[in-house]
């Protein structure tokens, strides 16, 4: 089988039937592909997060990243769209859920899909990932340092959850992670949390001073193991 991938901008139907921009990447050929929805961080639908989408495709996952800021500045650069979304008061959770539902449906409808879809998000996308995992029909979720997650949603978690955090982060702080751990345990949920020493927020971001090599390498390994088990990936 070829190791080639296809990566390109596309359009999906999101919340309210709106057509929104998305970035897709998937193996060029092969059947029975697992799928992943990537939720970008607060700075938006940027080059670094598109690189993450392509990385999932290299590992065999059909991947979609909806541009959650698209409505606020269609066709604009990531930074301008993120600023426009902030100027408008931010992305409502219901709108985010609708857009992610559209991405999940798009991925499951692919003839090459094995029917399994995971979701992963970074920073604000980590918070949204937890929201998605408690609200939509997905098969696995990875929360990468999402702060301000709604702990009251813990009883609603629908799928196995992997959480990757830095002990130097202030949101989520170690106390926030501990509180979520207790809430998930109390509700008998399946989850696996890891907090890295010498790492804070955004330790996966290779283009930011927050990048931490050891945490990032171990985190990626855990992601491949987790999605491999839950979604039938490599």
């Amino acid at each position: 089988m070829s190791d080639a991938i296809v990566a390109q901008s596309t359009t999906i139907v999101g919340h309210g039937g709106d057509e929104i921009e998305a970035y897709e990447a998937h193996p060029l050929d092969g059947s029975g592909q697992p799928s992943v929805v990537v939720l970008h961080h607060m700075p938006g639908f940027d080059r670094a997060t598109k690189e993450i989408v392509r990385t999932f495709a290299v590992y065999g996952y059909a991947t979609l990243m909806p541009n959650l800021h698209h409505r606020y500045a269609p066709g604009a650069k990531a930074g301008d769209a993120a600023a426009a979304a902030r100027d408008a008061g931010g992305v409502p959770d219901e709108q985010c859920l609708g857009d992610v539902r559209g991405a999940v449906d798009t991925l499951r409808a692919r003839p090459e899909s094995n029917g399994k879809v995971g979701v992963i998000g970074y920073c604000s996308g980590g918070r949204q990932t937890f929201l998605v995992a408690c609200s939509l029909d997905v098969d696995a979720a990875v929360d990468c340092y999402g702060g301000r997650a709604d702990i009251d949603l813990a009883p609603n978690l629908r799928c196995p959850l992997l959480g990757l955090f830095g002990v130097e982060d202030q949101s989520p702080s170690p106390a926030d992670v501990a509180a979520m751990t207790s809430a998930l345990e109390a509700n008998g949920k399946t989850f696996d949390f890891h907090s890295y020493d010498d790492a804070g927020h955004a330790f996966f971001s290779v283009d930011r001073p927050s990048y931490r090599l050891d945490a990032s390498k171990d985190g990626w390994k855990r992601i491949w193991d987790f999605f491999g088990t839950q979604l039938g990936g490599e």
Partner: protein
Amino acid sequence: MCTYVTTTTEASGSAYRGDDWFRVDRAVVYFDHPQDAPLDHALCIDVWGDRERVAVELDAPSARRLAESILAILDHDEVKVLT
């Protein structure tokens, strides 16, 4: 961390985007992840006019110095009488 800490204030004047000026009507100020500055967090200012903006991202000490400079100018005796 994403702070989401944001304030929006009315602003009246013009901004220069490199090739022309445009009228502005509001400024959005926040402390969060920057788009470009090599910082984990930055004091960001977007000065908007309709759908276009000028943006700056400063580290916290720089932003504080800028704010103090603006206030010092506005509080100058020769300026006060004009505002």
